[in-house]
């Protein structure tokens, strides 16, 4: 067997259980899988251990809910170039670039070798951000527009280089990696599990709950302790609240960028209501402090539960009015429809995930394909899918997901109230001390509001956390944005960008 089959609810994997195969076999295996649209790569990373470099790859099988884990290895100082898989499967592009720049592994025949987060290339000492290998075109009627890396607003850094023919964008290249936060290293640098949880919450500020849940899941698999089912429900409620808040915020942002004031102010108010609901539950508007391993500090009491249900019903009702206004406004439809189209096939090839993929008829949703916790038990999730792949499709996915999330929250809380309404804290206190299984690998795979969020935790022989490898859905989807604006007017870039709303810090770990 060249690979190990597991799923999103099984426990941690012993490192020696994971098959270690020759790169040629690995190449053929992945090449075979990825030709089939049911498979996509969730994570592919290298990890040095002693004088060896081991490469782990997690592939998701959407049809059967399996997670396929395989690995290959080489000598740490071996500098033979590996044949690149990116040429055949572009979805591996960011992973191979990361491995190349982190560990100096060279990939032979990679179509677009360039830095992912660090502009320095150890094989070329002159390389720096000043001579970043931006793609160029020449021609009398072409001009380049460079936006960033210093953002004119208050958000994060990223360089966007457009090659335009007049107003029309021919090519957009997105260069990220300006903030070197060292998040992954910070996980391994501390043994304090509470601190690690706080770090997970800070991976991407707008997906605090998604990242914290992914990390907590990975840790819980490593401790091997059963988790109370009511904790799953609380986490699902928190995750769906975060999803509602962000999808509403993005509807507002899209309205703002098209100058539609009514939609903007209505959504801003509703988003505030949503995050204030989270705050009334756990004291933080973004749900920081809410997700803890094996327990919670902020149990859902009957009053809190009733408050959340009441607010969510009100938000869903008012948001539905905004949605109807937007969908019946010709001036907005003219802006959103047929703008920023990412065709299904392109989205599949680049390995798009999350709501952006679902807007291009690619029904990738971890809640449905790899259910964990409450999903698949008391909730049977059907992904919201749109066909057209334009800004309108992405907006429609958002608005339909808000209604869906509101329904889920209501249903989960109803069950919760019936079963545990009288108990003080049915989930129990968090547990930061149980030791982790040594020499193991576990992963947390969660569908955040932006898409598939994956944390892979590897422990050493003493049971300490040796590495935490994080994948934010933005890693895949930034390329989708670049594809979306091809052929569009450059003035439509902002709404295309907002319709994806990708994370800079989730990419720049």
């Amino acid at each position, binding site marked *: 067997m060249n690979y190990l089959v597991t799923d999103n609810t099984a426990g941690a994997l012993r490192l020696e259980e994971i098959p270690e195969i020759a790169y040629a076999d690995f190449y053929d295996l992945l090449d075979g899988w990825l030709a089939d649209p049911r498979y996509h790569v969730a994570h592919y990373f290298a990890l040095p251990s002693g004088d060896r470099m081991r490469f782990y790859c997690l592939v998701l099988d959407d049809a059967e809910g399996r997670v396929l884990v395989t690995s290959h290895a080489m000598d740490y100082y071996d500098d033979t170039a590996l044949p690149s898989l990116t040429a055949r499967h572009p979805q591996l592009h960011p992973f191979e670039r990361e491995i190349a720049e982190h560990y100096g592994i060279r990939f032979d025949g990679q179509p677009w070798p360039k830095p992912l987060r660090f502009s320095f290339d150890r094989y070329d000492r002159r390389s720096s951000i000043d001579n970043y290998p931006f793609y160029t075109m020449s021609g009398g009627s072409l001009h380049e527009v460079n936006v960033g890396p210093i953002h004119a607003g208050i958000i994060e850094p990223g360089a966007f280089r457009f090659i335009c023919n*007049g*107003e029309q964008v021919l090519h957009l290249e997105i260069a990220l990696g300006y903030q070197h936060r060292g998040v992954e290293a910070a996980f391994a640098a501390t043994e304090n599990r509470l601190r690690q949880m706080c770090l997970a919450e800070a991976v991407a500020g707008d997906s605090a709950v998604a990242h914290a849940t992914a990390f907590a899941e990975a840790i819980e698999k490593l401790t091997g302790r059963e988790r109370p089912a009511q904790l799953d429900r609380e986490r699902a409620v928190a995750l769906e609240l975060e999803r509602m808040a962000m999808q509403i915020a993005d509807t507002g942002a899209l*309205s703002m960028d098209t*100058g539609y*004031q009514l939609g903007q102010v209505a959504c801003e108010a509703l988003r505030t209501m949503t995050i204030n609901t989270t705050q009334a539950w756990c004291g933080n508007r973004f749900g920081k402090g809410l997700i803890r391993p094996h327990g919670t500090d902020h149990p859902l009491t009957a009053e809190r539960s009733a408050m959340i249900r009441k607010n969510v019903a009100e938000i869903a009702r008012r948001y539905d009015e905004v949605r109807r206004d937007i969908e019946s406004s010709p001036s907005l439809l*003219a*802006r959103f429809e047929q703008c920023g189209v990412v065709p299904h096939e392109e989205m599949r090839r680049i390995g798009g995930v999350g709501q952006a993929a679902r807007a291009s008829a690619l029904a990738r949703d971890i809640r449905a394909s790899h259910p964990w916790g409450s999903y698949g038990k008391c909730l049977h999730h059907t992904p919201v899918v749109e066909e057209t792949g334009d800004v309108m499709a992405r907006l429609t996915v958002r608005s339909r997901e808000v209604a869906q999330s509101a329904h889920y929250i209501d249903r989960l809380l109803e069950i919760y109230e019936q079963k545990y309404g009288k108990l003080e804290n049915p989930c129990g206190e968090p547990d930061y001390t149980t030791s982790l299984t040594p020499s193991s690998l576990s992963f947390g795979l969660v569908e955040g509001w932006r898409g598939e969020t994956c944390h892979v935790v590897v422990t050493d022989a003493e049971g300490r956390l040796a590495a935490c490898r994080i994948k934010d859905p933005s890693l895949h989807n930034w390329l989708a944005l670049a594809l979306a604006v091809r052929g569009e007017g450059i003035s*439509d870039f*902002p709404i295309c960008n907002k319709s994806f709303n990708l994370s800079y810090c989730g990419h720049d770990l």
Partner: protein
Amino acid sequence: MALLNTLLLLLAALCIPGLINRTRALLAGRKGIRFAQHLYDVGLLLRKGAVYSPTTSVLFRMAPSVILATSLLAMLFIPVGDLRPLVSFEGDLVAFAYLLALGRGALILAAMDTGSSFEGMGASREALYGALVEPALMLTFGTLALLSGHTSFASIFEADATGDAKLLIVLLLAAYVLTKIVFTESGRVPVDDPRTHLELTMIHEVMCLDYCGVDLAYIKMSVWLKSAALSMLAADAVAAAVCPRWWFAAPLAVLLTGLSVGIVESTQARNKLVRNTTFILTITALAALIFFTGYLLRLNIGLQ
């Protein structure tokens, strides 16, 4: 009388942005900024110095003064209802249109002078829409001149105000076209969005990105003056048809622009940039239609 006329125009220029802001705030359910906030903002800018990029030349420094001067001068040709404007001569409507064009040209050159790709794009958009809106403006002025047989604003509105019922419809339509031109010329939704922070979508705002302090204040004031002058023309056209008095025309100009811009900006999204061309050409087509209607009416009058 001429001084009162100028005073009323200046007052309209100061009130219109305030009324737009109040309307928008009201429709958004917000408390909104105070009515005169834009005046405080510009007052602040006027007290500040200016910083110039080393890549810019004298063109860049001259532009704000040129724009302010041309807008101010153009404004002086406009009568308010039955009042006489400060400056008036035969053919001043052509001078009016090209003074505005001169100001626009100066700003376009200044924007190109900075060498910024954003400003270059803004300048190219401004040049395109400026060129497209000019026929609409000239055709509307042509209609007014044709109906009255005069080519100065002062005599046009004196002559048109004879209460001829046939003129009513043409004048009201001309007012409609002029209001639409105000939207385009003052960079308002759906053509442009003065509040946007996205440089890639801006038209007018992006050309002012490198200006600060007193220069920025000049540009802001010139936009107020320009939209006040055009709004007053629209109001004059209505007034000539309904009630040719200054106390009717002056508040009408403020209300017409203030409310219509405020309502449109609250309830409508901006055009896709390529659709602006269609939007402006539609104004031009309407202006052409009004011109021919006016022409036919005039033939009819002649035959009687």
